[in-house]
């Protein structure tokens, strides 16, 4: 078994024993999230006692967690567990039934310029006539305000370079491959210099080479931007991840989100995952404040 890590990119938790405390003692409660030793604006995402339901189906109940500025967080869970729903609550597309989501201390709808979002299945009409530069330009929108043309072009070029799709600038979006489209959508999310980048299963159905390129792009933005990425693989996540949050993995609490431990996975085949990965230890649950040591 590999070494237990909690924060492979930054402040590694050196005491695996602490991470492996019995679940009964460590189960996060809503009150954990209400009493963090930080001011709300220093926390990128703060979910407080969140509940959400689709008609009669309860999706989340008493969900509480937080994400620090600059963290790279992987969100895992089985299909239908509610990963996309949670991301939509965080970016403000959905409203919680009760509880609260704060992004840098404010409701998501007041932080539209701070959030960059890459949706899972954008229902693109393949016949929609639009060029890559125009897709990326959408990321500069903020409400109904106007954007200066010169400022926009510079930022579009910058975002295209960041996502390594500068050569596709004038191409028609519908003519791109799946991997190219996803990177263009990341450029669209990056163009406004967001403080929080939220990606919903961006590498689903992507070949390993495209996935590697994709994670290279994310490695470039890591640190300057808080990244929350939902992944389809529950057992392994990118080694870029500092933290893993698991949706609905707890049989006794299927509507919850828990912080699980990560461990090195030196022997995992990189070619299958598009780069280095770490293993998610679903059997080891961490308290919600496990990440707070040494943070602002």
């Amino acid at each position, binding site marked *: 078994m590999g070494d237990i890590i909690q924060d492979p990119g930054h402040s590694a938790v050196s005491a695996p024993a602490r991470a492996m405390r019995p679940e009964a003692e460590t189960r996060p409660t809503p009150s954990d999230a209400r009493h963090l030793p930080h001011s709300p604006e220093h926390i990128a995402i703060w979910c407080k006692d969140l509940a959400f339901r689709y008609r009669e189906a309860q999706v989340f109940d008493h969900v509480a967690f937080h994400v620090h500025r600059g963290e790279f967080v992987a969100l895992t869970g089985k299909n239908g567990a509610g990963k996309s729903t949670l991301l*939509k609550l965080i*970016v*403000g*597309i959905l409203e919680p039934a009760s509880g609260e989501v704060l992004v840098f201390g404010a409701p*998501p*709808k007041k932080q*539209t310029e701070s*959030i960059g*979002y890459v*949706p899972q299945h*954008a*229902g*693109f*009409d393949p*016949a*929609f*006539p*639009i*060029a890559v530069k*125009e*897709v990326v*330009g*959408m*990321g500069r*929108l*903020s*409400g*109904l305000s106007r*954007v200066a043309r010169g400022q926009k072009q510079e930022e579009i070029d910058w975002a295209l370079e960041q996502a390594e799709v500068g050569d596709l600038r004038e191409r*028609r979006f519908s003519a791109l491959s799946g991997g190219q489209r996803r990177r263009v959508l990341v450029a*669209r999310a990056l163009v406004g210099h967001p403080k929080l980048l939220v990606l919903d299963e961006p590498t689903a159905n992507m070949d390993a080479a495209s996935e590697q390129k994709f994670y290279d792009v994310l490695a470039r933005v890591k640190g300057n931007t808080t990244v929350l990425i939902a992944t389809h693989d529950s057992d392994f996540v990118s080694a870029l991840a500092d933290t893993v949050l698991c949706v609905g993995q707890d049989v006794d609490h299927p509507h919850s989100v828990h912080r699980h431990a990560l461990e090195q996975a030196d022997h995992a085949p990189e070619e299958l995952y598009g780069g280095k990965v770490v293993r998610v230890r679903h059997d080891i649950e961490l308290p919600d404040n496990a990440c707070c040591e040494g943070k602002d």
Partner: protein
Amino acid sequence: MNGFLQALANPSVPFVRNALIGSVLAAFLFGILGSLVTVRRIAGLAGAISHTVLGGIGLALFLAAKGAPKWVTPMLGALVFAVFAALTISAVSLKAKQREDTVINALWAIGMSLGIVFMAKTPGYADPMSYLFGNILLVTSADLYLLAALTLIVLVLVWRYYRHLEAASFDEEFAATKGVPVTAIYLALLLVIAVAIVLLQTFVGIVMVIAMLTLPAGTAGYFSRNLAGMMVNATVLSFLFSVSGLVVSWHFDLPAGAVIVLLAGAVFIAFAAGKVVAGRRLARARP
């Protein structure tokens, strides 16, 4: 052609000139709104609104025949029914998407049936065909002023909010995360389409409004690089179809609205067939 030009220059036959001016103004609405209808894939929805209008026209004709005040006109009836249909469909679309197609088809059928029943019970002669297929040569100056006002409003709104319309049409979910009021844009678009349908049905009739909202824009979609280009190209195509349809109908003594739509349909089919053939050649050329 010469006969048409002579009629155009003849001050004693203003209806030909009105028809041409109406064609230009209608071309902007068909081109711009048609492009948005096409890329948002709401042609069925626009079709339901246009057919519901017949119910309002029939009710207004019936009430007017029964002694209702003079302001109860077919256009007012059409407007009330069109706005009602737009609001109903948008409410269903936003709250219960799975029932959208059922409601669209229900409104379509009920609206038309109401129109036929009211017209049948209206004393005197009320011909549903004249409302279904219209007559561009019967356009009045008052119609042109209303059409010009709506065209101006649509041009200003699209110029000011083009990027927002584009984003909301391409990826509504992402646009919402950027604070773009996607629901308000959707409602406003449906209401403008409803009002435009009421005004445009005078030109080409209820049935053919939907054809002109989709065929020129659909054709433009085959060769336009972006939504703005599609709007411009669809507007130019709508104008060309309208004018050439007027000339052909004048020359051969045919119903103008039907000829305009047949021309638009023929060009659309030609482009669609060309695209299929080009796609097959490209596939064969690949190693």
